[in-house]
Structures are given as C-alpha cells and as structure tokens.
C-alpha cells in the first residue's frame, strides 16, 4: 500500500531527527512505553539506521502496575527485534506500598514514573532520551521543542526553551544535563494509527475490542488487574466489550466501550470519536495544568 504524501513527509522528518540524535549525542536511549507511539518509533528507528541495527538500547520504566498483556508483548517484541531492552523499576517505592489508591496518583506517579525515569537516566548516564510524545496529546506539549533541554535535575523550564529553527537542532549540553528528543512531535493520534495500518506494525492486543472484566461506574470502565483496586459495596466486575485507547498503568487507565477489533475499525472509530485521547488517563486530570507540572518535574 502506498502511504499518503503527508505520512511520507512525517516519516522522513522523524528519520532525520533520529539520525541527528545518534550523530550528535554521546549516549542516547529510546524510552519504550510499549504503546502504539513506541511501536511506531521503533519502526522509524529500524528505517533510520538500515542496513545497520538500531544503535541505542530501549528503556522501559516498569511501574509494576502495567497490564500483563503489555509486559508479554514487550518481551516478545524485544526478542524478535534483537534489540537491547533495559527495564527499570522503583522497587523501593513499591516495597513502601506505593499505589495510586493509598499514595494518591500524584505521589504514586512521582515515585514510580518520574522518579524511576530520572534514576534510570542518571544510572545509564544517557545524554539524550528519545520519546514518543506528540504535541497534539495535551496542551502543554504543544509548546515542547523537538530537542527539549533538561537541566541536571532532569527538569523542564517551559519559559526558557531554546529557539528551534528550520530543521537545525542544537544538541549541545553540559555534563549531567540532557535532552528529551521527540521525533513524533508533529504526528497526531490518527497519523500514528494510519502509519501502523500502512506499515503493518504490531501493537498490544489491549488496543483491540473484546469482552473484558471491568468495574462499570457511570461512563468509566475500570480494569481490575490489580487486587487493590477498591470496590464499592456489592460491586462485581462485568464483561464489557471494550478497548484501551492509550496504555498506562492498569489502575489508572480506563477502557472505552468499543467494537473496534481491527486497525481499520479503530481508525473508523477515531473519525467519529468525540473525546480526546488522554481523557481516560486519571493522572492528566488530578490538578489544573497537571501534565505541565509533571513535565517540569521530569516526567515524559
């Protein structure tokens, strides 16, 4: 299948960015989240460095609360690809009982995601962390650079970003400082699915609709993979035909009712959908401007 012109342009732009990272940064790493954007990123990396191998490792920040299907997919995917996969977990926080219901989502994310990520980047001495974030996902991300500077603490200062002109990227950082690099900056959710469709890229089955046990609370569908998810009196899981629109930790990622069991069906569903992609992510709504605050602290 021939890709439409705009997808070819986006693809070429992302490949250019990935090659710049490897050419100019001392020790890059790809933050692999197992989601659809990561899957696209890995395909783009294969294309960028062909006929050579992907020249950086994949890093997964495993909070311990990811869906089981995600972890299975991750291990299969990395093995097939023959790429080095590093998994990092904040075991100390888990041992202290970190979970979103006891600690609250802000503190839980702070420890299991942001804290673990900064720790892993520091341990690996990575000066560039490549991520699949897109500017259309959330409004503070609309102001993010492709090469986004982070200080020695891994923090983002949205009011003091480097100007980014043409396709010329400034990759210079001092020791201890780093950059987050976003090759998919200009992609939208629909672009990602269309690319997956044209390129036949494997994604986690959780994206496809099937009957799954869920706690049904009004419009919300809560997965019950973790035993600590609290139930209302007399509440029992129901089998609901649903799918995940974006993937995160199972206690904080709601499913959506859906019949979309294939990629074309997902694309068709997206064309009719009225809610934005991260609407089912509890952590985006726990305070005003919450993504912006998490990003400043070092979250992706």
């Amino acid at each position, binding site marked *: 299948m021939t890709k439409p012109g705009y997808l070819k342009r986006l693809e070429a732009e992302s490949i250019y960015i990935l090659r710049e990272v490897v*050419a100019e940064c001392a020790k890059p790493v790809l933050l692999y989240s197992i989601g659809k954007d990561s899957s696209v990123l890995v395909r783009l990396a294969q294309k960028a460095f062909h*006929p050579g191998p992907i020249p950086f490792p994949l890093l997964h920040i495993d909070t311990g609360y990811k869906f089981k299907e995600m972890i299975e997919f991750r291990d299969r995917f990395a093995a097939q690809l023959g790429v080095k996969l590093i998994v990092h977990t904040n075991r100390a926080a888990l041992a202290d009982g970190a979970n979103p219901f006891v600690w609250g989502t802000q503190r839980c994310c702070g420890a299991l995601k942001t804290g673990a990520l900064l720790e892993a980047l520091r341990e690996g001495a990575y000066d560039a962390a490549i991520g699949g974030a897109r500017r259309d996902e959330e409004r503070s991300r609309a102001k993010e650079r492709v090469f986004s500077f982070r200080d020695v603490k891994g923090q983002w200062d949205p009011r003091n970003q480097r100007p980014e002109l043409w396709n010329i990227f*400034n990759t210079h950082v001092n020791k201890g400082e780093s950059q987050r690099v976003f090759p998919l900056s200009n992609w*939208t959710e629909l672009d990602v699915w269309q690319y997956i469709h044209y390129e036949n890229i494997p994604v986690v089955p959780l994206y496809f609709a099937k009957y799954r046990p869920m706690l049904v609370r009004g419009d919300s569908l809560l997965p019950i993979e973790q035993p600590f998810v609290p139930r209302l009196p007399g509440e029992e899981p129901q089998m609901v035909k649903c799918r995940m629109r974006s993937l995160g930790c199972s206690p904080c990622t709601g499913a959506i009712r859906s019949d979309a069991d294939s990629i074309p069906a997902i694309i068709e569903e997206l064309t009719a959908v009225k809610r934005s992609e991260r609407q089912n992510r509890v952590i985006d709504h726990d305070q005003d401007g919450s993504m912006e605050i998490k990003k400043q602290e070092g979250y992706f």
Partner: protein
Amino acid sequence: MASTLLSNPMADFAQPEEHDRDLLRFTTAGSVDDGKSTLIGRLLYDSRNVYDDQIESVSKASAGRNAGAIDFSLLTDGLRAEREQGITIDVAHRYFSTPRRKFIIADTPGHEQYTRNMVTGASTADLAIVLVDARKGLLVQSRRHAFIASLLGLQHLVIAVNKMDLVGYDERVFSAIERDFRQFLELFQTLEPFFIPVSALEGDNIVHRSDRMSWYRGPSLLEYLEEVPVEESASRKPFRFAVQRVVRPDHIFRGYAGTIASGEIKPGDTVTVWPSGRETRIASISTWDGELDSAQAGQAVTLTLSDELDLSRGNTIAAADFEPEVATAFRATLVWLNETSAQTGKRYRIKQATHQGWAELAQIEHRININTLEKEAAETLEVNSISVVRIETARPLVFDPYAANRITGSFILIDPATNATVAAGMIDRAVESTHRVSDLPAQFTWQIKDRALVVNVDDPQFAAENDPRTISDPEAADLLQRLLERLHKLSSTE
C-alpha cells in the same frame, strides 16, 4: 466545496484521495489584541477538529473571563501562566485536518520576543497569516510581519482583516486596508498576498463564507488554505544531500545516510562530493523498504557511491552540473535571538545543514530597522535585531544562497559558553576571506604542576566532557604536553 467541510474531517480515510492528501505548514502572527488565538480556536472548532472534553475544559475555564460562551483563545493557550494572564508566551504547534489537507500551525505570540518567535514559526512554514485589526488598519507591526515572512522566504501571505463585526462589515474599511497594504508589499516581489475580511469571534469567513459580507466574493480562510498550491519546486532544484551519518554495518556496505535537501537522484547519476570537489556516481539508493529507482527532495535515504571516497558527516553530495558554493567567508542576514548581545570578533559554534564548526562574527555591515526597513549603523547585535553581517568560518561551508535553497542556505549560531542558540542566519553569498579562524575547540592554556599537567580550557562543553582536567600520570602528562605544543604550533603557523 463548502459543504464538504461539514462532514467529519477524518471520515474519508478509506477513500482513494487519501493518497494525494498533502501537508500545509503555516504560521500566524498578530499583536496582543488582534484576536489571533480566537481565530485559530475558531478555525479548529468550526472545522470540527476539537474534542468535546477539550471544549468542556475551556468552557469551564472561560467562565471567569469576559468572552462569549466559549472563549476560543483558551483552546490554544497551553501553559498555565498563559491562561492566567490571558497571553501567549511561546510558539505553539497545532494540528488539524480536512478531507483535502493536513495542516500544521506554528502559532507565534505577537508581543514580547515577537521577532524571535515569528522568525522561528516562519522558518518551517509554507505560508504566513498576518492579522490586522479592522479598526486600527495597517500598523507598524503588520509591516514587520510581512517583512519577516519575506525574509524567511515564504511565498504566500494571507492578510486576515479581523474584527469586521466591529466596523459594521463595511467594505470601504476592508478596501482601504487592502490598498495601503498592497502598496507596502510592492517592496517584496516574492510575496503573493491574499486579503480576506473576517470576524474570528463571530466566525465570518473563517471556515464558512459569511452572508454578512456579500460584497466579498472570495473563499473563506479555510477554503483558501485548502486550495493554495504547496511549493513542490524543491524537487526541481539542483540535487543537494548533506551527509548525516556514515553507515558501515559490515566490511562490505559503506553508505551515507541523509535527507535530500533538493533535487532528484537516480543510481548512475554523476555527482560531486564537497568540500573535496571529487566526482563519482550514485551506486544505489538504499532504504529499509528496499532499493529505490529514484528519490527526491524530502526523502530520507542512504546513498552508496561507486568510488571509495572517504566522506564524513557534514560533507555534501551535489549535482555535478550545478555546483554549490564553497567558502570560509560569507555575507548573511542574521536574526539575533539571545538576551546576551554580540560584538564582532566573537566566536560561536555554527551549525549549517549537518556541518558543525567554528565561526567568527567578522563584521556587522548594518542593522535593518524592522519598522522602517532602513539601514542603520550598529556596533552590537541585540536580541530581536535583524542585521546584515560577514561571517568567517574555520572550515569551508558548502551552501547555496538562502533565496535559492532554504535548507542549505540557513544556519544557527550556538554560544559555546552557554550552549544557547543565539542566532538564526540566512546566507546571501560568499565573500573574500580576510583572515583565518582557528578550529581548535577553544582557547586553552596548560602548565606543569607537581609533575602533572593542568589544562585550562575556556569552553564549558569541552571541560565538562574531559573532566578531570588534571592529568596526574607523568607519562601521559608528558605525552599530552608534547601533543598540545605541536597542535599550538600548527595552529599559529598555518
């Protein structure tokens, strides 16, 4: 055509026209009260590119402010400080699509840092929209925006005369502004202007044609954006390819990865590699999807050559019959982006295409007054100033004038002390070099202390990468000292 806009913009996924759907990148500029955020919010909302929960979140937020039922500007102002202060701080990117096109907007604030932000937004755009307040007419800043669009090499300029609702949708107001602006735009021969009367607040002529201005017979803003031809001439220009990486996965394959800046290429084509100037042929065009029979501007590929030439990152492969310029001194228009001003004689890192090296700001010819477009004498370069300068580099640059090629003719300057991107430059032409610029990483001195060599480098990047700076192993210290002396001698005699 207007009726197609009423359908869901994404609904035609399966249709064959999808294959032809292209991309238009545009930038928007206006000052604080021109209603720019409202215009973009309206464009997204009326073309059904906003989700319900996004509308709910801004309806909630706008309850405390003086706007209509929905404050469209809140759809675009992303940072908390912006929503609190009702201003736009930084360049923001927006995405939307219609069945005909995909659009990327670089939305630039018009107040402080206007030049820096607008230059940034325009650098990747095909088209610029300039907003004019119908009540105020052509202001100094409208002229400034047109000048920057022309400077950055944009071809299309849309002048949206906004707030027509506040002047009673009066044709005479619109015509007077159009007449004034056209007269001014005669200075910029390369710009093609298009004038549209709109009301972003009321939605007139944004997505749908307004029946309140029947005297205007042209397309709505969105219709125009869908129809305007996107520049595809890059493929018809001479072939240019800057090497991004050398690809050597094994002893047999040696390829050069990069993106074609302009032109087309086929295996067998004769090319010249620069700066050496040696001629060779394209052996193959390799991609993950297989070898290609041809490739053109914008494609990211890996080229192999029929001769064993030792190319490296920063080198250029170019059409043999259209040579690029190769020089260590050139004249350029420089936009200063940083609060720290610049004087002649200062050295910066330069990045042009994939080349990186050292450059010296050799001379400031003049500064351009961006309000009057007059030339002024200048000793220093201040933030948001635009000047014509002479730059000398340590290594030869391979380039084309910016007017001929936006990719090979543009560069940035990086301050080695802070790593900040301090300037954006557009090359005019090569000039005579007057002196040699050192390509040593920075000024350095060394001394022997207690049989150890202490190196002091006036470059935080270098110092950071080479910590610790005291070499205490006497043998290594001795070796390094001899090397440094030799290097120093070489650089001062050449």
